[in-house]
């Protein structure tokens, strides 16, 4: 049951680690990792989010059903992102912004 009372020291350590991780995120953004910049940013953000969920939101002490609920939510988010990416990754073109100009009678905004 979630009546478990966590010690204040745990909260402080979690807070400190979140602040450090924020600094890490900002620092990593200034380092040119090419493609991996985005991946690093998302990994750090994901880790910070799991810290907040696990300790601040007491997910650690919750029933399995709550953990399952969160997992199901993330699973369907991955489906939404993944399957849309299937389409956009396999499209053989990047859209050219159309020719927007006043006098061309073919394309108007």
């Amino acid at each position, binding site marked *: 049951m979630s009546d478990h009372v966590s010690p204040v020291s745990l909260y402080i350590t979690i807070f400190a680690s979140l602040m450090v991780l924020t600094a890490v995120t900002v620092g990593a953004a200034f380092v040119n990792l090419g493609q991996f910049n985005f991946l690093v940013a998302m990994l750090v953000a994901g880790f910070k989010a799991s810290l907040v969920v696990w300790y601040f939101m007491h997910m650690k002490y919750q029933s399995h059903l709550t953990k399952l609920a969160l997992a199901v939510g993330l699973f369907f988010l991955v489906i939404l992102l993944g399957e849309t990416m299937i389409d956009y990754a396999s499209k053989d073109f990047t859209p050219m912004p*159309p*020719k*927007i100009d006043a006098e*061309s009678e*073919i*394309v108007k905004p």
Partner: protein
Amino acid sequence: MTIFGIPIFPDQASTFAKDVDTLYFFILTVCSFFALTVAILVVYFGLRYRRKREGQTGARIEGSLPLELMWSVIPTVIAMVMFGWGASVFYHLRRPPDDAMHIYAVGKQWMWKFQHLEGQREINELHIPAGRPIKVTVSSEDVLHSLYFPSFRTKIDAIPGRYTELWFEASKPGTYHIFCAEYCGTNHAGMIGSVTVLEPQAYQAWLQGGGEGGTMAERGARLFEQHACNSCHLDSGQGRGPSLKNIVGTTVELTDGNTAVVDDAYLRESILTSQAKIVKGFQPLMPTFQGLISEENLLALIEHVKSMSPQASTASGQPAGATPSPNAPKPPARPGEKKQ
């Protein structure tokens, strides 16, 4: 095919219409078989085991795993057959042959504008030769539309801001419907037209009578001078711009190191946003023509540049500049189509 004068099956006017219809009849027979078996069983069991006396209860049958597996696995297999067949027909529908004749279609709120390479422009009307694969490149000017040829069994959405394409090879001369299948506002129902499939000679005759202002490539040449493109793009290649002779299909070196294949999209981009890709050894001097050239003129220019590299352009589309055979008989007045 009609019953009591009511048409209940569309006529098959394109080569792959038959493939689509055979697929349709396959799935129809499989589904009717399953639907009928279920219907008959349900009615038979209902009557055979109807309740005779009050308080009578059914037999204690919990279920049977083999039966369940049977009617999960068999439908899966049938579904995979349907998927495979459907996917092969779809792949055939969505891959235009290379030698297809090119037509541009632009959807605009409540009309279809067709543009032939030879310069003809038609609204809600389309004349095409039978027996030749035709690739229609479709775009829209405002909202979503969808170019739909029911008798050819094909359609594609017209999306503003990008090109989509469909292809067909008309097999049976005649006049068939064109519909807009994507809701596009008040007169969506009025955005219809008719496609007239003509015998090749009749089509050439129609071209003769119909084309105004010579072929697209000739119009492109005139624009080439008009916009002073030839002041930089000299054939000798000494000018400030690269020579455009025989460049279609080749790959060019760019200043920022990578290469690009010279195709429609590359030509289009170099005209509209010339700064994007600069050929190695040249300065980024070319102004962008965005907003100075209309779509038709742009297509004409592209055709002109393609006509400057004859051996490449024969591989992609009708040999530009080939004048229709002079000895075609004077065409009768353009066949009056049923005005929509």
